[in-house]
């Protein structure tokens, strides 16, 4: 009986706790990918070719391999090279966090690079002729302006990231999708379990989408 699921099964506590894990995973990996991605973007526009090459290699490698493979690698393969990503309790979460951050950093890097390249060269030349070093020009002139033009696309990346946190369930992180799978395996009610999971994901992504659309309109950058 459809609604009956609410009263009959104790496993339902998994939904709120799964939701919380998903939120934590999303926020932390987003922060990580923003920082890392900006770094990679700076590499990609650096004057030194080796740096540009490293940045380019990073982006191509992480964008052209599936996130699932990257997560499995971090979870199952890293101990074989002596890297332990956490204690037993935190291993899966940390592996998922790292994997999500590394993967999305590649996309963030491309967005930020696009923003950096879009800045009028004249500004950079002016800054340099005023005596600012490369790094100072970056910090005071380029990055602040990039910020504005880059926010809406980054908003889009973050929506994708929230959805991609669902992959953490495949390495055993007790996130929202995992909660749905467990509830389904205990109750055999696939429709109710997964509709609940879907609705909870919508609660996360739809407001984000509306927010990004609003930001896009407000931050209309005249080019």
């Amino acid at each position, binding site marked *: 009986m459809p609604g009956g699921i609410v009263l009959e099964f104790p496993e339902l506590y998994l939904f709120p706790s799964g939701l919380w894990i998903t939120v934590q995973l999303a926020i932390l990996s987003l922060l990580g990918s923003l920082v890392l991605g900006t770094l990679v973007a700076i590499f990609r526009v650096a004057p030194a070719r080796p740096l540009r090459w490293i940045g380019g290699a990073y982006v191509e490698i992480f964008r052209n391999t599936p996130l699932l493979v990257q997560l499995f690698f971090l979870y199952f393969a890293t*101990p074989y090279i002596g890297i332990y990503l956490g204690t037993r309790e935190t291993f899966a979460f940390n592996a998922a966090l790292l994997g999500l951050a590394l993967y999305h950093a590649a996309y963030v890097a491309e967005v930020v690079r696009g923003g950096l390249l879009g800045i009028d060269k004249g500004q950079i030349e002016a800054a340099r002729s005023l005596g600012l070093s490369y790094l100072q020009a970056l910090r005071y002139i380029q990055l602040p302006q990039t910020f504005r033009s880059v926010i809406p696309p980054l908003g889009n990346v973050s929506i994708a990231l929230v959805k991609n946190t669902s992959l953490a369930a495949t390495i055993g992180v007790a996130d929202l999708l995992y909660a749905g*799978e467990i509830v389904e*395996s205990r109750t055999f009610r696939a429709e109710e379990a997964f509709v609940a999971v879907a609705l909870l994901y919508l609660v996360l992504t739809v407001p984000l989408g509306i927010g990004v659309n609003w930001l896009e309109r407000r931050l209309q950058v005249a080019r």
Partner: protein
Amino acid sequence: MRGQLFRAMALVLAAAVLATACGGAGSGGASPSAGATKPSFAASSYMATIQASGKLRVGTRDDNVPFGLKNPTTSKYEGFDVDVARELAKALFGVANGDDVIEFVSVVSATRIPTLQDNKADIVIATFTINDDRKKQIDFSDVYFRTGQKILVKKDNTTIKDVKDLNGRNVCSAKGSTSEKNITAQAPQATLNLQDTYAPCLILLQQGRVDAISTDETILFGLVKQDPNTKIVGAYFSDEPYGIGFKKDRAGFTEWMNGELKKIVADGRWAKIYKQWITPVSGDEKKNPEGK
């Protein structure tokens, strides 16, 4: 340009449809060799339906030594469960080679029941424990193998001797299996690490990220075979009668299957299959599922 585009789309769709003919699960096979005594069944029985379809669809595991595994060098299924399925297929179609009339469907613990309910397989024979909850969803044959749940630890482990010792420790088991529910019931303070099969569990045990793996002893046999640096400890803390699962309301199927299983035990085929697959890892020999 537009014409080219639509033509390309049609080609893509056609290719996709054609592709499933060779790309979907299972292999295409020749019809059963004519001439052998093909048993006849009542037209309304499920056996007749299977005969008409030309193949017995068997759901089994592809990574569960020694019951159901896919040999990566031959890409063929083998194991105890697989051989029992072959005997059933041989009996159903009256052929000498079961592989001609079987289509294997790969399952994991969590998909065993959905695979039957969605009619993706006629039977599921995959270390499937019979219990009341499951009987509400599907039907089972008689017991074709009996075992119990035990614990696997590293060979040098001295702290875990019994299920109660699992409390406060990390135990790995399969998502959606009776094993993980038994652990929660008997050792409520144990921390569960759930994977979709047991092979990743073994990797985690080797890496020291879980203290133990717990499931049916027969599955643990397979893990010991893969990694001799482990040992099985503890007494049986559950009774696991394995049955062959199939969807409800298959006319005449239960009777036929139980009849065939009795024959397989009576004429020694069961003992032979046991000796081939189980004896190398368990060290004992059995003549029938009850071990008498």
